[in-house]
C-alpha cells in the first residue's frame, strides 16, 4: 500500500501530479521510496536538494567532513554560515527547510567496508557522489551485493560522466573499469580543480536518473554512459555491456564480499588534497624547511602548473610541472640538496618517486605543500 498524500502535499507536488508519467500514484511512490546519497559535496548538493524537493520520502546522507569555505564554489547545499559545521547536519537543515515532510537520516562517518552494507541495505537506490576511487569501488560492490541500482556520476574539471549501474539488468562500474588507474595518474578535484557549475549540471542529471528509476519511467542510463564536456558543450553516449570477466557481477565472479578498497586502489578513501606525504623519511615540514633554508643552500623545485604560481610562489624556486618532469630531468642536478613542493604535497610526492627512481638521492618532499608554508611560516601567502 502506497502512502496517501495530504492536501498540503497535493499542493506542494501539483506540478508533478499534472504530468501523466508521474501523477498521483507516482508521487505516492516517491513518498514511499528511499535514496542513499553517498557524499554531500559537489554532486551530493544538487542531488539531495532535487530529490528532497521532488518528495522522495527518505533520504540518507553519508559524509564525515565539515564545511570549508573552499567547498562553497560548488557545494550549493551549504552556506557561509555553515562553515565548520558537519556537512551532513548543514545539508539536513537545508533539506528540511526545503521540504519538512520528508525524513533525512544522516550518517556522520566515512563510508567503509565495515559499515556500508549496514547503511545501504534499507534504501531503494544508491547515488554515488563520492570524490575518490576507493569509495567508488566500494559503492559499486555494495550495490551489486545488495542488488540495488547505483546511480553513478563523476566529475573532473570540465568533464562529467553519468550512468546507472544495475547488475541485475546491465553492467556494473567494474564492468567498465575493472581496475582503478595507478595512483597519481588522475588528479583529484582538490589537486586538479573543477568548474563549480559542473557538479550542478551532472548532479542534476544524476538526480533525474534516480527519479526515473524510482518511478519506473523512461529509459534510464542502464547499459549507457553519458560523457559531458562543458567547454565543448558536448554530450556523447556510449554503450556499456556486462563484462563476462567482471570480478563482482560476472558468471565467475571471485569477489564475493567487500574488500580493502584503499589497498585495491593504492590511495586513501578521501580527497582533502592537503595531506600529501611521501612517506617516512622523505618528508620535510614547512617549519623545518624554514630553518634549513637559513643555513643550507637548497634547490627548491615547484611541480605545480604555471598558472598556480600567480596564486602563491616561493622565491628562487624552479618550476617544472609534474607532467613535464620526466622529460626535463636534464635541467636538474642530482647532486643538489633539493626540496620538491606543490599545492598540498600530493603531486610533489609523485615527483619525488620519479626523481628517486631516476637516481636523485638528496630530495625531500615539502609535507602539506606551499599551503602548509602559507599556514605555518609565511602568513602573507594565501591558502588555496
Amino acid at each position, binding site marked *: 500500500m502506497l502512502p496517501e498524500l495530504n492536501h498540503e502535499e497535493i499542493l506542494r507536488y501539483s506540478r508533478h501530479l499534472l504530468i501523466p508519467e508521474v501523477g498521483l500514484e507516482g508521487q505516492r511512490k516517491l513518498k514511499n521510496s528511499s535514496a542513499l546519497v553517498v557524499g554531500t559535496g559537489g554532486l551530493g548538493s544538487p542531488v539531495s536538494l532535487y530529490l528532497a524537493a521532488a518528495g522522495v520520502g527518505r533520504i540518507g546522507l553519508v559524509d564525515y567532513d565539515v564545511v570549508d569555505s573552499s567547498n562553497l564554489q560548488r557545494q550549493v547545499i551549504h552556506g557561509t554560515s555553515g562553515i565548520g559545521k558537519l556537512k551532513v547536519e548543514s545539508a539536513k537543515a537545508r533539506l528540511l527547510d526545503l521540504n519538512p515532510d520528508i525524513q533525512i537520516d544522516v550518517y556522520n562517518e566515512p563510508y567503509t567496508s565495515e559499515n556500508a552494507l549496514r547503511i545501504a541495505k534499507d534504501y531503494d537506490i544508491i547515488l554515488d557522489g563520492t570524490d575518490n576511487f576507493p569509495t567508488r569501488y566500494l559503492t559499486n560492490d555494495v550495490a551489486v551485493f545488495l542488488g540495488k541500482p547505483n546511480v553513478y556520476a563523476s566529475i573532473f574539471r570540465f568533464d562529467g560522466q553519468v550512468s546507472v549501474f544495475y547488475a541485475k539488468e546491465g553492467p556494473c562500474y567494474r564492468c567498465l573499469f575493472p581496475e582503478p588507474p595507478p595512483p597519481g595518474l588522475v588528479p583529484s578535484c582538490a589537486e586538479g580543480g573543477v568548474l563549480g557549475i559542473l557538479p550542478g549540471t551532472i548532479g542534476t542529471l544524476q538526480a533525474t536518473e534516480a527519479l526515473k528509476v524510482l518511478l519506473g519511467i523512461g529509459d534510464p542510463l542502464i547499459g549507457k554512459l553519458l560523457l559531458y*564536456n562543458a567547454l565543448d558543450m558536448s554530450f556523447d553516449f556510449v554503450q556499456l555491456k556486462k563484462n563476462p570477466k567482471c570480478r563482482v557481477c560476472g558468471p565467475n565472479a571471485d569477489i564475493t564480499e567487500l574488500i580493502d578498497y584503499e589497498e585495491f586502489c593504492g590511495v586513501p578513501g578521501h580527497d582533502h588534497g592537503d595531506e600529501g606525504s611521501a612517506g617516512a623519511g622523505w618528508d620535510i615540514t614547512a617549519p623545518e624547511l624554514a630553518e634549513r633554508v637559513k643555513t643550507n643552500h637548497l634547490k627548491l623545485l615547484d611541480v605545480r602548473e604555471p598558472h598556480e604560481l600567480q596564486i602563491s610562489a616561493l622565491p628562487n624556486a624552479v618550476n617544472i610541472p609534474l607532467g613535464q618532469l620526466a622529460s626535463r630531468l636534464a635541467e636538474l642536478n642530482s647532486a643538489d640538496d633539493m626540496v620538491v613542493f606543490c599545492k598540498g604535497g600530493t603531486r610533489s610526492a609523485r615527483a619525488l618517486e620519479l626523481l628517486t627512481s631516476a637516481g636523485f638521492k638528496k630530495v625531500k618532499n615539502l609535507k602539506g605543500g606551499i599551503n602548509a608554508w602559507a599556514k605555518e611560516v609565511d602568513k602573507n601567502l594565501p591558502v588555496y
Partner: protein
Amino acid sequence: MPVLRIPTPLRAYTSGQSEVNVSGASIAEALTDLTAQYPAIKPHLFNEGGDLRPFVNLFVGEKNIRDLQGVDTPINEGDRVMLIPSIAGG
C-alpha cells in the same frame, strides 16, 4: 583520418589537444601513431610490457573495443575513437 578524442586528464600529454587526427587501419595502429605524435602519453596508456592498461577504455563510435576485436578492431576514415578515462571527482 580517424579522430581520437582525448579526455581532459590526458590532454596535458597532447599539448592540450582535445582531438588528435591519427592514421592507421586499426586501433593498435592509431595508438602507435598517437604515441609517435605525443610520446609522453605512452606510459599512461600502455604498461611496461606494451599492453593496453586495463583502466583505459576505447570506444569506436558507441562501442567498446573490448566488445569488438580489442586493439585489432578495424577503424575507417572519419571514425571517432573515444578514450574514456576513469575520473572520480564528486
